[in-house]
């Protein structure tokens, strides 16, 4: 749910800068109305909207980026850097709620969040935030297969085709534990939240069996590699599909017939946030329809903001099955839930076995 292949570099630089700022003690005094510290996915916002927010509210935004939920969590948990607003995914939000890291939101301060975000998305959020107390949906989407029509013999419709030897060295898998295991679990018809050791063992063996066919395990690079025709098939987030198709019309996105993951990334405020009020102002600003549509057009990830969707000018995109799939058509899409410490450890252990094989 993120982009950019040099973000590792950006992260390093931003860490260095943060460290320098801390050392020199040049506590930036912030804008006239203080500051808000935002921690978001890489390339997950239109930078212009940040400038607009600063101009309109006089609140200075300190903006930092992460690449995966797993890299974000230890940084926030250790309190090494204090953030106000973070944008984790569903299962990570439930983990953070469980570990008492999030602050309850006051929706009275956020009229846009109340009015503009579709009721169905709050409903869906109950999977990880049962009382809708902690999170405001920002982006959502599915995980599916992106394939290059000119490089395959038949339409791709199933995860099983990622095990087809004729696509050897032409397959890109996601380099993250949950997304990689999801593919194998759905292939065998398991739940993507299974912690059953036998089912996981089966999924692991399938991934090991698939490994020789895989060209590379990638995260953001899947975009550039698919656009460049480097691989025929890639596992990708639906939000990247519109952008990649715009760049390379041969690419097609499908949700495989065995089912997949549907995810939500939501804004949350940390319990020990130094600027809680500004944090809510920031979230509410992002829910304003004109801002949300600007972000949608920039990052092309599906927006849960119904008011913003109405503002999309391109009819094709507004009614796109990729950007806004009708979820009622699918009965095998699942949300990730937090697996608990033991479940996480099991997944990580098995992922390591796959990678070292």
């Amino acid at each position, binding site marked *: 749910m993120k982009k950019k292949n040099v973000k590792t570099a950006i992260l*390093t630089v931003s860490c260095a800068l943060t460290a320098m700022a801390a050392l020199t003690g040049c506590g930036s005094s912030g804008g006239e109305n203080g500051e808000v510290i935002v921690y978001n996915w890489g390339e997950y916002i239109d930078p212009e909207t940040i400038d607009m927010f600063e101009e309109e509210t006089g609140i200075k935004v300190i903006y930092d980026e992460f690449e995966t939920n*797993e890299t974000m969590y*230890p940084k926030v948990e250790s309190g090494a850097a204090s953030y106000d607003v973070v944008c984790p995914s569903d299962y990570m939000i439930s983990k953070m709620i469980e570990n008492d890291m999030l602050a309850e939101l006051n929706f009275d301060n956020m009229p846009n969040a109340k009015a503009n975000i579709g009721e169905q998305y709050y409903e869906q959020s109950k999977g990880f935030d049962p009382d809708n107390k902690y999170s405001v949906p920002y982006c959502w989407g599915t995980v599916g297969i992106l394939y290059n029509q000119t490089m395959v013999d038949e339409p791709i419709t199933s995860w099983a085709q990622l095990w087809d030897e004729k696509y050897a*060295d032409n397959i890109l898998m996601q380099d993250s534990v949950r997304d990689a295991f999801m593919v194998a679990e759905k292939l065998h018809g398991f739940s993507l939240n299974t912690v059953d050791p036998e089912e996981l063992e089966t999924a692991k063996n399938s991934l090991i069996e698939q490994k020789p066919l*895989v060209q*590379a395990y990638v995260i953001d690079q899947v975009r550039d590699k698919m656009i460049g025709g*480097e691989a025929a098939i890639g596992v990708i987030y639906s939000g990247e599909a519109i952008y990649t198709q715009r760049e390379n019309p041969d690419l097609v996105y499908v949700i495989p017939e065995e089912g997949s993951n549907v995810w939500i990334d939501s804004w949350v405020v940390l319990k020990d946030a130094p600027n809680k009020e500004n944090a809510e102002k920031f979230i509410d600003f992002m829910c304003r329809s004109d801002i949300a549509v600007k972000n949608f057009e920039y990052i092309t990830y599906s927006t849960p903001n119904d008011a913003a969707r109405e503002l999309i000018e391109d009819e094709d995109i507004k009614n796109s099955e990729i950007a806004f799939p009708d979820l009622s058509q699918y009965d095998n899409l699942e949300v990730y839930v937090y697996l608990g410490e033991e479940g996480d450890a099991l997944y990580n252990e098995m992922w*390591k076995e796959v990678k*070292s094989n």
Partner: protein
Amino acid sequence: MTSKSKWLSAPYVLWSIIFIVIPLGMIFYYGLTDKTGAFTLENITAIMTAEHAKALWLSILLSFISTLICFLLAYPLAMILANMKVNQHSFIILIFILPMWMNFLLRTLAWQTLLEKSGVINNILNFLHLPNINIINTPYAIVLGMVYNFLPFMVLPLYNVLSKIDENVMNAAKDLGANSVYTFFRITLPLSIPGIISGITMVFVPALTTFVISTLLGGSKILLIGNVIEQEFTQASNWHLGSGLSIVLMIFIILNMIASAVFDKDGEGAML
């Protein structure tokens, strides 16, 4: 030591404590405890499990190959440089150091673009109707990345010792009837050992611990010990295991350092 010089060294002592001693202490603390904070050696012995041992072995193998290739490439070059006139060799050294002004990640990413199946190199080869090279996402690409990134660290210490060898020693050898091969093996090579050891350390240690090169050029398909440690910290949130494995890795690095200390008593091989 006068009290004045003690005061002058204070900032460095402080620096070492904050950025070397304390972090090392934390690694040992995490590495030798479990999640409850109780003492355990489990994180250290975890290196014996199949995945970890395999990753460590592969790291050692690839770093060894890279170091060897660096040495074979760097030694003749350093000899040529050492025999050059002053203004010529500083230009060549500049050429070697120049790429290091650019960020290491960017240079490695550039290799990715060069080596890809439909990358720059293969496009040129196609144009010339030559066979393609498919080494991206294999150990070969990782070795290439290591050699490319660490070669200057081998060249510089070698050049440093070779340029200091007294020409009169060579001339004496020749006067006594040694041919050039004999002179090389009896005079040049033994006298350059401090540089060789220093170069080996400066290539082997970063190659052994790298995780960026293997991720970018190995397509995350090849798990080196650096990748295992990185993932324990960033993905698995298991700082204890990550620290434990780091301690194991440190043992290998310390062995390497001891070897250099034994061979390089005078510190002659130090960088320029």
